[in-house]
């Protein structure tokens, strides 16, 4: 269709200009800052000196390295548990369970609660060493060793944080797996049953291969989520619970601001961005399963 330039500008202009000025430009500027010696937030970039990759090498000596390890641990440990749990839930919910709608809503519920509030629900109540749910439960069934477990002691903070994080993520991934499973033709399962295939065999031979596309896109979504890990680091305070975003926050905006040069903080942001962009690019390289239309 033919369109006057003016009309096109009225339609797309606002989004385009806002995006260029307040998104693209700041991103480029942050990337530039990571190569300059920027001593503090209130120094203009043109007054700073170029120092190549030394911000990145300086970063290597800070606790940012530890925060990347934390990120990787969250990604891998929580990721595998979330994947297994949400697949189990998704398969359960799609195999003719009564009350499917209700269970599904309950699974997704933690997703809509602010993550900070979720964190406090766990630390203040569930993990509490005085009136905590876990303490009461394990005392009741007689597992005293677990009842005495110090969930909120610094050594165990990371595990506790992972549990809360898994809890607030399972629902979303269950829903995505469910919709993928529901689009598999039931005739495949009927044929497999007639041939005598067990349910586990059906899962590994039919379900899993046919939801491969969803699996791939979920890995990308999981990566972006984990890279944005922040709120729970505020609640579960310990050395090994600091996420990269938390590190950047502390160094640039929070209590530690002024101790580390701004350029180093910007370099940390760049590293985080490169990680996400790489995962995006890699997941696009994985060939899509074309013989299934999901």
């Amino acid at each position, binding site marked *: 269709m033919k369109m006057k330039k003016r009309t096109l500008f009225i339609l797309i202009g606002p989004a385009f200009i806002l995006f260029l000025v307040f998104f693209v430009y700041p991103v480029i*500027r942050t990337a530039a800052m990571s190569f300059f010696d920027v001593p503090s937030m209130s120094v203009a970039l043109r007054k700073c000196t170029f120092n190549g990759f030394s911000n990145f090498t300086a970063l290597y000596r800070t606790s940012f390295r530890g925060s990347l390890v934390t990120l990787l641990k969250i990604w891998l440990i929580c990721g595998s548990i979330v994947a297994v749990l949400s697949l189990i839930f998704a*398969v359960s919910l799609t195999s003719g369970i009564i009350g499917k709608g209700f269970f599904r809503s309950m699974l997704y519920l933690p997703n809509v609660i602010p993550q900070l509030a979720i964190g406090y629900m766990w630390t203040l109540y569930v993990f509490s060493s005085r009136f905590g749910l876990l303490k009461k439960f394990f005392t009741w069934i007689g597992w005293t060793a677990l009842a005495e477990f110090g969930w909120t002691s610094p050594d165990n903070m990371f595990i506790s944080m992972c549990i809360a994080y898994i809890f607030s993520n399972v629902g979303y991934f269950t829903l995505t797996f469910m919709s993928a499973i529901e689009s598999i033709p039931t005739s495949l399962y009927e044929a497999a049953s007639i041939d005598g295939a067990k349910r586990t065999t059906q899962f590994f031979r039919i379900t899993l291969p046919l939801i491969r596309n969803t699996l791939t896109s979920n890995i990308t979504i999981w990566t972006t989520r984990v890279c944005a890990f922040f709120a729970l680091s505020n609640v579960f305070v310990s050395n090994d619970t600091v996420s990269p975003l938390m590190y950047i*926050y502390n160094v640039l905006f929070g209590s530690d601001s002024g101790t580390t040069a701004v350029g180093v903080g910007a370099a940390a942001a760049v590293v985080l961005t490169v990680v996400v962009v790489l995962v995006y690019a890699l997941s696009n390289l994985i060939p899509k399963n074309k013989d299934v239309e999901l």
Partner: protein
Amino acid sequence: MGKRTRTLKVRQQIALIPSYILLVVWCVFIFVMLGWIVMASFSTTRELFTDKLLSSGLHWENYEKVVVTGKMYIAFLNSLLYSAVSVFFTILVCAPAAYGLSRFNFKLKNLFQRLLVVGLGIPGVMVIIPLFSIITMLHMGDSKVTLIMLYVVTSIPFCTFFLLPAFSDISPTYEEAAAIDGCGPIRTFWEIVFPLVRPSVTTLVIFQFIGKWNEYFMAQIFANSGNNRSMSVSLNQIIVAMTREGGWGGMFAAVTFVSFPTIILYVILSRKIIGGTTAGGIKG
């Protein structure tokens, strides 16, 4: 239903028992957790520690302490403002852009679309650092406008892509008919095309609203002083203060007050929310 199919159904349900157990455990856990926290929010600190929740009636003063004295009602209004205004402007900007991209070819189209794709993957910190630097240089401190603008701008890539397929699905005959009747293209868009994509827009509005309501990182940086705090920022501040003085009932009141607006919204809109999650590939 024949006898054979019925026994088959029963056998199928028996095979599902482990699944039922798992799901029921999950639900019981959520009910116990939320239920206990709500009860605790009406109890005194002493009752919490002696395991006698609610034994002296409902202590509304816990809520009075955090909502009125702790100024959480301001945080509530702020969060409402941040979410509602930012979602309004996001739709106002992204809907026409998505429509333009779905309908017309122009020189910069490719560039714009590519930038948006890259924008999908870039974390918000990259946008924040220079803005924060400018604000510090101008001694502006934090402000409501900055946060709302950030919410709008960082939503542009996702929201534009979310609405794109909805507009592509609409037949151009609507616009052609409108053009023949002498309706200008901008008016045609808002009055004829936009209402046709209402289902997608509604889903997007709900998700964006909840997303911005729950957003914490940017709010912590740009809305961290007195009357600008959002719900989450205010929750953090109140918990830290109350941990020092040991006001446990108040802490649970604060957690409840922050959690329940979205829970209630979810109960009302749960069908729409669950449908939207799987249909549009919302990244949350």
